[in-house]
């Protein structure tokens, strides 16, 4: 039986593709790479790599312990490299105004009841539930994507991360 090798990416080893232009502007394809973005970002800087109206996919470098966040809607985190812990707390009272979009950074340790903890490795997806506060922790640098809505913590630097020349 033939053995196949699945090619994953990582912060240490990724091979970025490209847009080969025939007759178009490469910027139309908003082409970037999650590992490339995470490699050059500050820990937990949540950089938009995809945007569709108000919705975004953020890429982030996981390293050390993040601040606390909360959102008025579900979010999801997908670990793309490394091992990332997610700590969840059920807030005693809402930390963000109803209808607020995207993640809101919390100034202090949230008051509430401990919900649990996730440990995500490559390919693992976790729920960041509405009404909870969460923070990330990674002993070693890792990379993750977050399915969310554009908000206060979303960083947009498209010209820096995307292919602009043919």
């Amino acid at each position, binding site marked *: 039986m033939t053995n196949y090798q699945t090619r994953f990416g990582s912060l240490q080893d*990724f091979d970025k593709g490209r847009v080969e232009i025939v007759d178009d502007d490469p910027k139309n394809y908003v082409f970037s790479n999650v590992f490339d973005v995470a490699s050059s970002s500050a820990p937990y800087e949540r950089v938009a790599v995809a945007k569709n109206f108000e919705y975004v996919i953020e890429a982030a470098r996981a390293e050390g312990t993040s601040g606390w966040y909360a959102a008025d809607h579900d979010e999801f985190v997908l670990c793309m490299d490394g091992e990332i812990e997610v700590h969840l707390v059920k807030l005693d009272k809402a930390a963000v105004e109803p209808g607020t979009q995207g993640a809101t950074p919390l100034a202090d340790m949230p008051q509430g009841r401990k919900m649990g903890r996730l440990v995500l490795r490559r390919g693992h997806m976790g729920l960041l539930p509405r009404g909870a506060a969460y923070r990330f922790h990674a002993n070693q640098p890792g990379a993750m994507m977050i399915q969310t809505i554009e908000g206060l913590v979303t960083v947009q630097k498209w010209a820096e991360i995307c292919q602009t020349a043919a």
Partner: protein
Amino acid sequence: MAMLESAGNASPSSENLARHTKVLPADNVNGYRSFEAGSFQFKRDEYFARITWPGGSHVIPVDYFLRALMRDIAWGFFYGTVNFDGVFGTTNHYGEVTMFAGLYNDAFRAAGRDFSERFPSDVLMPLFKTMIGDWTNEGYDPFAAPMETGGPWGRKHGANDEAVERARVTATRMVGLPGDTPVRTDANGFPVNRMFADVPQDAPVIEVEPGFENEVSAFNLFAYLSRSDVTWNPSVCSVVGDSLFCPTSEEFILPVDHGNDRCEWFVVLTDEIVWDVKDKASGKNRARVIMKAGDVSCMPADIRHTGYADKRAMLLVWENASSKIPEMIQKGEAPVVSVQF
């Protein structure tokens, strides 16, 4: 991708809809039924699907035709246009659907030889489902990669209803949550695909305090995708409002040339997928997008694309199923490019 039930319907705009459909008796030689939809007729023989319409005809190898028809059915006519090949296809108006020959082909258009008819979606879909059921032989699965299924060729022999009637997977919040779409396992009929035998099957650590079992949850998405039994058929695995993560496993060729009517995002999670991008209306080449693990790219709303994957790859298709988008498309207000910079 593939959540059109919740995508909302634009107001039907056509008053002269074709409503005629007919299933004809089985052919005495090949054993296959023929079909009529409006002025279109469909026949199959041992190797080909043959389509005729007033003033024209077309032939498509039946494996190409069945793979494309299967996706058109599974995706509910999908977002925008499903080109079965350079001549024949369907365009979704969300509640109505146009079936066309040569509508997006420069030569047909220039010669005035293109032909199209618009149907209520709920009139055309049952005919398509009957067609795929009749034309799919025992042992052939149009969702499967070519090396993982039998051939579609020959005279009518049996059927494969189990394959062509698969229910599409649509998580309502996230795969693996109590009451939502279950994770895939050997026990529930999803063995690891031969090309993903090296994908770790480990589960995330989940420590839950009592009372939070419905909210503290995680699953191994890569293991889930390694066990997909279909190709080029996205399924919803997580939902944030109208934002749908629709991952899928891809091998060989996307069986349609998908003409976008809205921006569509791709994130390649493993391996490599190459996209040929052409102008939606003319079919002229615009770009090739070579995507490797971690690459993110947007398909503009005015293109058609098809994809190629040698080694089975994991692709995250990211869709916005907002009900406002079909109306924006009708008014020409939907953005062609998602991000300007």
